[in-house]
């Protein structure tokens, strides 16, 4: 097969595969540029959601590697950062599940992250939320992501984002009123 023919076929594959839905048009942004600009935008909300900065760092890098693998598709997405966040969150949850099994055999080496906070009670209440609820709270309340972006990043409908946030806020309000 001639080299030129191979190239033509590859380009043809990209174009025709768009119909199949797994490759979309190229966008100009380089992966390196995206990585430098977006790494922290994934790591920080993830660290607060997971309550584990080290795991957040690790999972952000893993998700970035997968973004690199699928870069043609990811860079054409409307919210590549949200895509990376979702992959990182899923990967981290998977790791946490595995780690729980390991903890049954050996004690964990990593301590619980405990930052300086204004309100210890509120920190504990936030920690008591499920990861999915905390993810919505962090993205919507702290980072002001739109409902649509949050829904896309978490892979859930917008209605689910609203209901998770409402339930989380209601639970927090209820617990804090109980404490008062």
């Amino acid at each position, binding site marked *: 097969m001639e080299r030129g023919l191979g190239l033509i076929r590859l380009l043809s594959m990209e174009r025709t595969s768009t119909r199949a839905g797994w490759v979309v048009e190229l966008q100009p942004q380089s992966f390196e540029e995206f990585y430098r600009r977006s790494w922290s935008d994934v790591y920080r909300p993830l660290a607060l959601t997971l309550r584990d900065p080290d795991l957040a760092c690790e999972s952000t890098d893993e998700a970035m*590697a997968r973004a*690199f693998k699928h870069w043609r598709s990811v860079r054409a997405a409307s919210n590549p950062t949200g895509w990376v966040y979702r992959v990182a969150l899923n990967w981290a949850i998977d790791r946490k599940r595995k780690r729980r099994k390991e903890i049954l055999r050996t004690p964990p080496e990593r301590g619980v992250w405990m930052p300086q906070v204004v309100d210890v009670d509120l920190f504990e209440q936030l920690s008591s939320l499920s990861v999915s609820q905390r993810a919505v709270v962090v993205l919507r309340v702290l980072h002001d992501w739109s409902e649509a972006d949050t829904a896309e990043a978490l892979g859930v409908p917008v209605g689910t984002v609203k209901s998770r946030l409402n339930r989380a806020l209601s639970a927090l309000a209820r617990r804090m009123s109980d404490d008062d």
Partner: protein
Amino acid sequence: MTIDERLRTELQMEDSALPDLMGSLDGTLRRGRRLRRRSIATVALGSVIVAVAVIGIVGFSLPRLPDTQVHTMAGEAPGGTVELVGVSFSYSNRLHDSPEVLAGRAAPEPLFDTSILGTEIPLVEDFEAVDLGDLNGPTATGPMLYGGSVAETPVFVFQGAMGPLEEFLDLLEDGHHDGSLCFVGLEAHCLRPGERISIGMGGTGGGPDGVPWEWSFDGLVGEDVAVVSVIVNEVAAVWQRPVSGLFSLPFAGVPGDSVSLVLYTPDGQPSVGYLPTKLPD
């Protein structure tokens, strides 16, 4: 102060207390290249040693092959057959001498109308996609057969110091992916002696903008097979001509989709099928 305001203040404090960790771009690029590789394995007949189609190997460094070398050597070596763990492959030319890298031979030309099979996803001879200097995996113990590249993912088959297919997959998952989902739900099927077909997915969590994840059928089939075709939910989706029986056919799918693989002889007879299966969650 409202609950929202208290929350925001609290989260801002937590955020400011986060350690300023930074990822490694170089490490991410290396990891990403490894993820791009695709693997296929075939079990040795009556043996624990396998021939593996892949991608790359640490400590097994080959120079990138310039096109001129490929074509010059094609004229010098008429091709032949190579035996990998009991499976014979024909090759069209010898691309490199030490270690040997062989170019696979295209499947027989289909003599029927392939337009009914959906989109062709060809294996292309694209050595630009082959980064042999960043390989990570088993060490080849014999010649490497290069099938081609699919979307810049090179597909090789070679004999390596590996265990049986299942063990190899465990190794890949645990050793390279730490239990994550690179090959989640993978199933391996033997259709005829010497043939192996597997199905796997490339990631976790869903694709961007609702685009399904890329799955793939990979495998080795008889060199009499002219076309392999993937059917998704009873609709022909994609097809490919194997190279020396080697194929790697990506397709789009979501969990729950019914997929099957059909192999066609040159005259269009479906020779062997992979029974419909549901893509796992």
